[in-house]
């Protein structure tokens, strides 16, 4: 089974040189720590920066320089600042190559729910609805099973959805899945995880064909 950091590391292997990437809050943020050698990517944060750098050294935090998670950040050489309309404009226009998001539920048709739990205080969707409606290439980083032991890879989302038919790939503690018209296609399995556990942990339509390689992390 993968740790959160290993999920991030596996997703980082999807990065290609020259990619513009938007990383959501949570596990997605960790992806920045595992960018492969020789691969240059530019991180976008939807509050208005391209070329986001690591957190500043202590004492060098600048209140005017934060990311969408309101964390203090830095600028790398070649970074650009812009307003929120242009930020979502470039997302909507498909100029961001990869978006990595967390999710509460993903359906076998690629729907995602990650903004609202009925009965709990609703904090809002922030930029999530724009991202899932606009990005060409979205990978979800999530735990496959909730605390009650129930699968979060579902035939249909039970929670209010954030976007329809938009998720292409899911990486969980158990495996890597492509979402196709056939459902969740298992592409890789995490070290030490059995196919039986994958089956138990996937409520939506699961496709397992041929030998499934073990993830390299």
């Amino acid at each position, binding site marked *: 089974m993968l740790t959160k950091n290993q999920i991030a590391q596996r997703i980082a292997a999807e990065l290609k040189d020259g990619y513009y990437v938007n990383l959501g809050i949570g596990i997605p943020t960790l992806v920045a720590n595992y960018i492969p050698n020789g691969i240059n990517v530019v991180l976008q944060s939807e*509050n208005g920066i391209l070329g986001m750098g690591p957190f500043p050294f202590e004492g060098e935090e600048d*209140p005017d320089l934060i990311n969408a998670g309101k964390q*203090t950040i830095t600028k790398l050489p070649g970074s650009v600042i812009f*307003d929120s309309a242009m930020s979502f404009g470039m997302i909507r226009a498909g100029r961001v190559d990869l978006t990595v998001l967390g999710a509460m539920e993903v359906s076998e048709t690629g729907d995602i729910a990650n903004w609202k739990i009925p009965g709990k205080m609703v904090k*809002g969707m922030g930029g999530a*609805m724009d991202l899932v409606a606009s990005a060409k290439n979205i990978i979800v980083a999530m735990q496959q099973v909730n605390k009650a032991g129930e699968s979060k890879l579902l035939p249909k989302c039970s929670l*209010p*959805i954030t976007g*329809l038919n938009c998720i292409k790939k899911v990486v969980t503690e158990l495996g890597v899945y492509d979402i196709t018209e056939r459902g969740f296609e298992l592409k890789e399995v995490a070290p030490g995880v059995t196919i039986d556990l994958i089956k138990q942990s996937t409520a939506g339509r699961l496709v397992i064909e041929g030998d499934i390689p073990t993830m390299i992390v």
Partner: protein
Amino acid sequence: MNKVYKNADEALHDITDNMTILLGGFGLCGIPENSITALVKKGVKGLTCISNNAGVDDFGIGLMLQTRQVKKMIASYVGENAEFERQLLSGELDVELIPQGTLATRCMAAGYGMPAIYTPAGVGTEVAEGKEVRRFGDKDYLLEYAFDADFAIVKAWKGDTMGNLVYRDTARNFNPLMAMAGKITIAEVEELVEPGELDANFIHTPGIYVNRIFKGANYEKRIENRTTTPRP
């Protein structure tokens, strides 16, 4: 042409109860601190505030929630605020949550004289309820209307007496968009300079959009989420 006001109290003198106000900023970054303090002091009630967030309990728009001046909040994300949650659950406060890109683009539409825009954000979700859906190519879009607000209040880094504004780093965020979107736009700035001191090629908000400007004082610029890298 005199756009310069002495302070927030004077610049905001004609804001009255039940108005709709756009407020710049993202989280606590780039918020019009002096204007919020002036609104609290002024005590206007029943406001509809449009801003990406609602501040925290003791800073930003949160201060106007403590004094129960806000009737309705239009935002994309309103976490980190206990008083907000209490008022929402008790029914004292009305909230409309809209996708962040939609919020930004509805401001831009107002500033560019476009009555409405199409965006795919929210298609198939609760956000689409009651809205017109239209297909262009192989994709569905929602029709979303330009904001129509009485005032826009923004915070810039530098401004000149003609109302031209420049923002600093990600404190830009919604500020230039909201500056274009108010019937009357008020800008508070850290530095107020003479015309010609800002380079014409690098002004973010042209003064034509700004009706009033004043030099703010005592910026706290609170950091919401201080994250650092250990020194090597």
